[in-house]
């Protein structure tokens, strides 16, 4: 319960199909399509929306500085309150959090959170991401979004004995789930051997351990409790939080407080603890029904499971191999196929939230987790430094 007594629910979800490129749809069209679908699922129009929050991550990807200014027209938000959130990969869920503040404060009843990405619009997205690093101390390693996770994974292998076969089990599961998700970008089954035989990007990461770059849009409609219509199916936001770690990866190497080091995801565990506390979750292993977690590479999903309290440190790898986190397992992780199969950067974290909301609403189609009443969504960004967690529930908690 917020201090002002206002509960917040996600009532509408819109996603475009996610693909490698969106030749037919420009960025503005992706925003509009996602918005219209989200509004349609809760029988609202833009006239019903009090405020808009735009999720727009690195503008360098589209070559327009402060592109939120042009987006105002695309979303039909002229005259409305609109603001933009940019926290790297966590942007999509941070934008949901900004919208949550607006509704939970009692200021607004209906907020549209929307974003899109069209990575193919930039000449070479990887070159842009290579420039997020400190130019003097880290960029020349070379530190990239791939090598940062490769180093984390190799550290985790050293401390906890993770194997490449365990990483492959994550990839096989996510690709199998994505076959059930019509919006997923990568929709093909893979085997453990195929993953292990795929080419190395940077040891121990292989091509089929890695996320794609996707184009598409996502939107959610947040509502106050007082303005809910009887036809609305609420997915209540019972906890939401973010935590940021140090910018310099070097500051995260070696043992740290709480026993974490760069092989783990300390900031994710901090954000999760806060969200659980708000929601009154005491034992995540028994109280959480499903998880949509932002894992850009397969080993990230393994340490995320531990940071979220679903497994003890160093034990999640074998649990993935044993099917504990499969769609029909004890706690399904990424029933949508996850980031490994869909990665529209500005909204990847919002897609996690949207999929979690669909699960709680019972609207996830073939990927529906039976009895999903408490579902976690996470985001990750920066130098594997930003993490956010949202807890969506069928009943009001906290």
């Amino acid at each position: 319960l917020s201090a002002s007594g206002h509960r917040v629910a996600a009532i509408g979800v819109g996603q475009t199909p996610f693909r490698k490129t969106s030749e037919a749809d420009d960025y503005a069209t992706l925003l509009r399509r996602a918005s219209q679908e989200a509004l349609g699922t809760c029988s609202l129009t833009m006239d019903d929306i009090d405020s808009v929050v735009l999720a727009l991550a690195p503008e360098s990807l589209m070559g327009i500085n402060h592109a939120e200014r042009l987006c105002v027209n695309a979303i039909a938000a002229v005259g409305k309150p609109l603001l933009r959130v940019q926290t790297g990969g966590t942007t999509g869920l941070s934008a949901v959090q900004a919208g949550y503040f607006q509704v939970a404060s009692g200021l607004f009843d209906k907020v549209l959170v929307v974003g899109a990405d069209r990575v193919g619009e930039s000449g070479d997205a990887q070159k842009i991401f290579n420039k997020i690093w400190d130019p003097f101390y880290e960029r020349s390693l070379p530190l990239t979004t791939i090598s940062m996770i490769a180093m984390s994974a190799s550290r985790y292998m050293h401390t906890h004995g993770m194997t490449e076969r365990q990483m492959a089990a994550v990839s096989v599961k996510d690709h199998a789930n994505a076959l059930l998700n019509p919006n997923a970008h990568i929709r093909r089954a893979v085997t453990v051997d195929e993953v292990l035989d795929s080419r190395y990007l940077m040891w121990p990461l292989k091509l089929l351990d890695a996320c794609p770059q996707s184009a598409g849009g996502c939107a959610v409609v947040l509502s106050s409790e007082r303005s809910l219509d009887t036809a609305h199916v609420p997915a209540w936001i019972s906890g939401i939080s973010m935590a940021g770690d140090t910018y310099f990866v070097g500051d995260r190497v070696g043992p740290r407080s709480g026993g974490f080091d760069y092989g783990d995801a300390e900031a994710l565990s901090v954000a999760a603890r806060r969200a659980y506390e708000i929601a009154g979750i005491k034992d995540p292993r028994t109280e959480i029904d499903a998880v949509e977690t932002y894992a850009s590479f397969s080993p990230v999903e393994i340490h995320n499971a531990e940071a979220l309290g679903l497994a003890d440190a160093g034990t999640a790898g074998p649990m993935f191999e044993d099917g504990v986190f499969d769609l029909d397992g004890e706690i399904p992780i990424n029933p949508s196929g996850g980031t490994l199969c869909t990665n529209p950067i500005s909204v990847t974290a919002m897609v996690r939230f949207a999929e979690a909301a669909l699960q709680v609403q019972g609207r996830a189609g073939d990927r529906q987790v039976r009895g999903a009443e408490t579902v976690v969504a996470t985001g990750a960004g920066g130098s594997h430094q930003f993490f956010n967690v949202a807890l969506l529930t069928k009943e009001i908690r906290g």
Partner: protein
Amino acid sequence: VSRPVAIVSCGEVVSPAGTDENLEDMIFRSAQGALTAGGFERSDIDGIVIAASDQTDGRAISSMLTAGPAGAYLNDEINIASSPGHAFVTAYLSIVAGAHRRVLLSSWGNASETSSAGGAEAAERLSVDPYFERHALSALAVAGMQARAQRSRAGGEEGVRAVVAKNTNTNTFAAHSAKPHLLAYPLRSDEVAPAISGSFSLVLSAVDTTDIDNHTWVCGVGWRSDSARPDDRDLVGLPHLRAATADAIGRAGVADARAMDTYELHDYTADAELLACEAVGLCGDGEAPELAVAGNLAAVNQSGGSLSGEAPFGGSMRKVIATCAHLSGGDRALGLIQIAGGLVGQFQTVIVLGREKPL
């Protein structure tokens, strides 16, 4: 909105353009200054809100670097990248919502950090539509269009000269040239805010968690957006600023904007200040130039405003700090702040601060 929120401390670092101090140090000093001024430790803060502009800061994801010196390590943080006014609103609402008890809010601008040749002005030009407008338009060019419309309506530039004299009379951070030159017709260099570097931090707190008695209360906020296309917009009437003002003063329980004792308005140009005076309701349409000439706009931009020096993108948070100072002494009870973002204020945020706890 039911939970009273106050600004309990401020910190600022202001330097001439081209300062040798790096951005991280500047942000750290203002954030630390706000904490120290309030007697806080970083552990007293449970929310960090920043306004970071990637291209102005010269980075693809600025907050990766800048959130840390703003106090974000392992804290609940968010970067509102569209406007420092939007960041203020988000910090405020996060406390009202009960998500945070005490928030450290920071914004900044250091033109020398930008990666675009030509500095922040060149980076700003990249925000214009690349196909139809970028070859002709920039923030300065659109400001010139607005100024021309204002002066045409006023029938002269006496009001503009009065605003320049008023705002640059005191508290000037960046001296204007003795021989102003034409920047974008009809704007001359002394009629446009000169660039400085600076970082600005505030601690906002729920009242039930603080025992500091030197509060400046947040009484009301409003923010609205206009079209991105200058040719779609009413650059003189500024309807979205009028709407944001109505939202803010209405939420503050104030019937008339003329009830304010102090106004910190957007004066990217002197013409913009005149138009803002009318849009926020300080005077009727077309009356501001005469009031300026008569010396009756003394309550506007007592800090010297942006014309006395403005850090790119995040610098307008200084108007909040200035208003806190105005309200901390004397008999001033209410202050209105306008923070604009985008080309000649496509995004408008209005904040009403008061010395008395809001009802």
